């Protein structure tokens, strides 16, 4: 158990560190187009050529032939560490041009291939993860917080509070959200900066998503507030707040954790729908959501499998979070409150 937790935490930390330092790890600017190399497959790394084995990894250039891309073996380009490349602001603190790795132009190193405009997919996945993971987590937090609050109040106080709050959730779940999104878009100014888009995204998704957790939580609270220890605590004069904090909250944490593992990836992918209405992160800025929307095309899915990289990244992120949630949940089980 210990080692498993340790591994998971390390993986999570590594993931977030990678995303945070995306600008350093990514060899290229995510919006830099290379119109000569659209849909290029991932660059192959070699250690061995006609002259024998080398210590340093090297790559060849891709050239476009009749049947697709071919490696141009006439010239090899070694992969260098800590190279100079395009300039960027490191963590918003200082400008630098150092990147973790790179090759000398005119060759390029695209570990995950390129997209339809020749932009490096690896760089886009890293930069995109910044926005998407942050938006997904923030939206989940909003939804779960609002949902838990409503659910607890509804379940604890019962009667009309319960009825009206639950009616509220049903209202929310039934409404035509597509129309609402259209209306929201119409009210907004035409251009919204990426930062504002991010906040907007999280608010919209969180706003729409609070209803389900609310109902789940309310169900549990309804049952648990009749437990003996709760009744006992109340008869001892404990305030509502105390009862809620000490006895009810631990009950609902399990559900909340499980919901969180489901919601984070779902909210990251929800950006695909939002982009359709113009509420997503707009081109050319990268986000996993808008990279996913190109995958809805059958021909792309079938012909350019490397474009599934954001799906892979999403899966890895979600799996790590889910496994961690499992661990946290198992920690919460023992000891159980109430005796």
């Amino acid at each position, binding site marked *: 158990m210990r080692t498993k937790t340790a591994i998971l935490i390390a993986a999570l930390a590594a993931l977030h560190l990678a995303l945070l330092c995306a600008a350093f790890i990514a060899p290229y600017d995510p919006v830099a187009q290379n119109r000569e190399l659209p849909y290029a497959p991932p660059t192959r790394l070699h250690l061995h050529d006609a002259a024998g084995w080398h210590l340093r990894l090297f790559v060849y250039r891709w050239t476009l032939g009749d049947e697709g891309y071919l490696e141009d073996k006439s010239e090899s380009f070694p992969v260098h560490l800590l190279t100079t490349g395009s300039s960027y602001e490191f963590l918003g603190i200082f400008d630098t041009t150092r990147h973790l790795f790179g090759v000398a132009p005119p060759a390029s190193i695209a570990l995950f291939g390129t997209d339809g405009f020749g932009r490096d997919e690896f760089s886009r996945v890293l930069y995109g993860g910044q926005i998407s993971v942050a938006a997904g987590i923030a939206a989940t937090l909003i939804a779960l917080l609002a949902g838990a609050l409503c659910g607890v109040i509804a379940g604890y106080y019962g009667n009309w509070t319960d009825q009206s709050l639950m009616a509220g959730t049903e209202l929310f779940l039934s409404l035509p959200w597509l129309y609402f999104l259209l209306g929201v878009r119409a009210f907004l100014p*035409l*251009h919204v900066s990426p930062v504002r888009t991010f906040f907007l995204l999280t608010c919209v998704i969180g706003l729409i998503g609070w209803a389900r957790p609310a109902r789940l939580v309310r169900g549990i609270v309804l049952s648990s507030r009749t437990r003996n220890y709760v009744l006992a605590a109340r008869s001892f004069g404990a305030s509502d707040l105390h009862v809620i904090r000490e006895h009810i909250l631990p009950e609902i944490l399990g559900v909340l954790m499980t919901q969180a593992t489901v919601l984070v990836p779902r909210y990251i992918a929800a950006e695909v729908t939002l982009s*359709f*209405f113009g509420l997503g992160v707009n081109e050319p800025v990268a986000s996993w959501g808008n990279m996913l929307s190109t995958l809805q095309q059958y*021909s792309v899915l079938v*012909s350019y499998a490397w474009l599934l990289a954001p799906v892979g990244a999403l899966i890895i992120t979600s799996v790590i979070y889910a496994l961690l949630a499992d661990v946290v949940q198992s920690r919460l089980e023992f000891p159980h409150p109430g005796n």
Partner: protein
Amino acid sequence: MKVTTSLALLVCLLAGECLAAGPTPQKPNPGEELFQAAQVSGHYGGQLTIGGRAEPKTFNPVIAADAVSREMIGRLMADLIEINRGSQQTEPALTKSWKTSADGRVFTLQLRKGIRFSDGHPFDADDVLFSFAVYMDENVDSPQRDLLIIDGKPLTVTKIDQFTVRFTLPRAYAAAERLFDGLAMLPRHLLEKPYRQGKFVQSWSLNASTNEVAGLGPFRLKRYVPGERVVLERNPYYWKVDSHNDRLPYLDELTFLFVGTEDAQVMRFEAGATNMISRLSAENYSLLNRERNRTGAQLSDLGPSLEYNFVVFNQNDLSSKKLDAIARKQKWFRDLKFRQAISAAIDRDAIVRLVYGTRGTALWGNVGPGNKLWVNTAIPHPQASPATARQLLKSAGFSWNPSGQLLDSSGALVEFSIITSSSNTQRMKMATLLQDDLSHLGMQVHIVPLEFRALVDRVFQSFDYDAAIMGLGGGDADPNPEMNVWTTKGTSHLWHLNEAQPETAWEGEIDRLMQQQMVTIDYTKRKQLYDRVQQLISENLPFIFLATPNVLAAADSRVGNFHPAILDPYTLWNADELYIRRPTENAGVR
């Protein structure tokens, strides 16, 4: 499991085969004056399935507004004069011949004698009169009504005898016979009663039973399964015969399957559930192309289409609206040099390569090389040149700040947004390429995808946009349908709608030229006038033209007489000539 599945499939197919034998075509009668398609041959039998983007909404040709309904209805109905999509010329259809008066205002049409509707009822001039009365009825509000109103006055239809009709236009109208294509002739014996009762608009909805719907097209309605498919069967009374005097169509059944997006259609085509695809994107075409040796599919690249994609800048009069931010930017948009600079900076070659996978053509005017009859080949096609763009901007008073950003003459940053439809992947890609090109000039361009109707609302109604990437055209090769785009009072005069008077000399000149070509009957003279219009457009850039896709279509190996065309409906225009090859025949991979 697999065995049972294939057995089930086999049973279905066999059952389907027995059911699919359509009504036998009637032998040609001596009294019938039929159209002989002299080059056409094939054999009877078989069923063709084609996928559609959505479900048709009605069987009523007069009120149908969406493209899917019109495509299906077109197979059930026939017109007096049709435009042969292959040759782009008009040819007699229900009319066997017609005479035009010297001033081009009066058309006397001789209808074919002895023809019957798909339910056997005879067709004559009364049906024609009835049909036109319905089209022009103001209470029916047919979208096609406006075609028949020239200069605010409707054309008049008179019956000369049982098989002769005369049309009188309020004034001479060039290529007037092209108007008749798309105006389906309605069966008076079925529709007159609902029309007199005021229930015409509700007739022939999707709930209509098969004996309520009849037409003169190659097929008639067999069955509609809600949400899923429409099945048409052969019209045994169809008025065309092939080279052996056998009555067309060859197909027993034609099925429209509602499949959804183009990707879903390609998947179904690959799985063998459909036999034809009407329009393909370049990526799907390449996908199918790679497999053609294995599948034997017939793929057609017909060259550039008649559509044109463009960037339009908002030059509307915003004084009555509270759109100050946009109004300030309009001083750039109205500057011809600004638009010329943008046009010079756009890498059209990249658009053709990356958006259309080389299956497209760059455009510098509204008429592309696909329209062989009307294209003005003298218009210059300059290559992308950021240097020229910079010079133009400099001479217009723009300058650059130390970070390389573009500033206008008053020192404000040049920043604007381009809206485009989020459902159109090609235009979204064009927007991304454009944004990159213009960023090299120092312009800050933001791409704003919008849902389609939200886009239309902004461009036509609220004018709350800076620039938009849109597409128009593709309806017909003739210049007349474009009147509303280029004339000042036209409803599609997008860059400056609701303009009372032409604001610039060139717009005034275009007005005059377009009016003139509309009443000029001689093709050479019309071409000269329209050439000058194209020249003015490409010089003054109300739209900055980008590119046009090629028309790409596909059919599986068994479809015979597959001759797609660049005019809508791309593959079904000759549905009456299509046939299914027998397995023993040589499939003839193209």
